[in-house]
């Protein structure tokens, strides 16, 4: 089994930021990513919950790519998080089918 080292970003953001973050990931060189909608959770400001009446929930964007793409994305996110809520976690991962990342 052939595995290749790549870097993974787990980005938690508010709903309104999703189009901008997805655009940024494409520009940074990621070939793909996945978006998951949060239902409820708890953060630095206490609990939050998707209410179903239009209040935006938190979204998790998972992106796996090269070190260079991750560094470009992290620079953008560092600037973004100076203004808006959100967090990002970075980890090294082993992937199959390296050409897809």
């Amino acid at each position, binding site marked *: 089994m052939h595995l290749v080292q790549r870097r993974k970003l787990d980005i938690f953001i*508010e709903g*309104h930021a999703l*189009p*901008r973050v997805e655009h940024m990931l494409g520009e940074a060189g990621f070939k793909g990513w996945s978006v998951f909608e949060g*239902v409820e959770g708890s953060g630095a*400001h*206490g*609990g939050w*919950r*998707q*209410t*179903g*009446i*239009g*209040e*935006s929930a938190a979204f998790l964007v998972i992106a796996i790519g090269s070190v260079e793409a991750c560094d470009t994305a992290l620079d953008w996110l560092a600037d973004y998080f100076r*203004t*808006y*809520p959100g967090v990002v976690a970075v980890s090294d991962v082993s992937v199959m089918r390296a050409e897809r990342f």
Partner: protein
Amino acid sequence: MLETAWSAASANLLAPAILFFVLGAFAGWAKSDLSVPDQVAKILALYLMMAIGFKGGVEANASGFTAEFARAGGFGLAFSFLAPFAAFAVLRFVCRIERITAAATAAHYGSVSVVTFAAGSEYLRSIGVEFSGHMAAVLALMETPAILAALLIVGSNGRAPGARFQPALWREVLLNGAALLLTGSFVIGLITGEAGMARIGGFVSGALFQGVLCLFLLDMGVIAARRLAETRTLRLVHVMFATAWPLLSAMFALFAAKVLGLSLGDATLLAVLSGSASYIAVPAAIRMALPKADAGVYLPMSLAMTFPFNLVIGIPLYHAAAQWIIG
């Protein structure tokens, strides 16, 4: 007047919609697992906005563009834009709320609640008081000016970078789903008139509308109670503002309605709109434009305090006051 208000309040408290709201609030308070699935709640909200807009448009089609509409709409626009400045002064200097959060909260109180409007309309229908269809258009006009006022109050220092001219923000402010559906449905009702009503009248009014409103309010009761239970940062001054400000706004609107020569029903709805606070359209825009504002303050105030207050006490009280002022 007090006797009339008490009698109206008693009748309101026994309406199915209010009792379902109370049931939801009890379920939320008691930590019951009762809940309306998120996607269903969104469909219910979409339905209510579509029905309110469409019915308003059909009625406006029948009555035509009247001077009364122009006066009510003009007041609504001006109130929605100017009220946040007064609310901000009280929140900042009386309630001692931090500047950006005070501006964000003020925006919520300048804007309006669609569901409070729906409950107010149903209350008037239940007691046989007529009102104009164009009040749904006044509702749509009052949705967004308060957001612009909040941006002006805060100035460039507290806004997100580029918030004033950020296309995404303007899209959120002007084309948010709630405002677009409400306005669009009103226009469709205006175009199709009675012919349109003959086709889908059974879908947007009567028992179906009442039932959906009950189900939506059940969900709102659960959400409001849970939101209140999770609130950590609210103080007594927040509670006082959330209940006293709607009263002041509603009274101001009623005296303005008297000057403008509005009917009893329209005056009551104008008071309901002025006394209500947004919890759908404005929070979404504020998250984008004023990200440093504390959602733990403005959301519980508008959703968990002002909304239930208006629903249970405010609506019949505003109508009783309207009878006294308008005659």
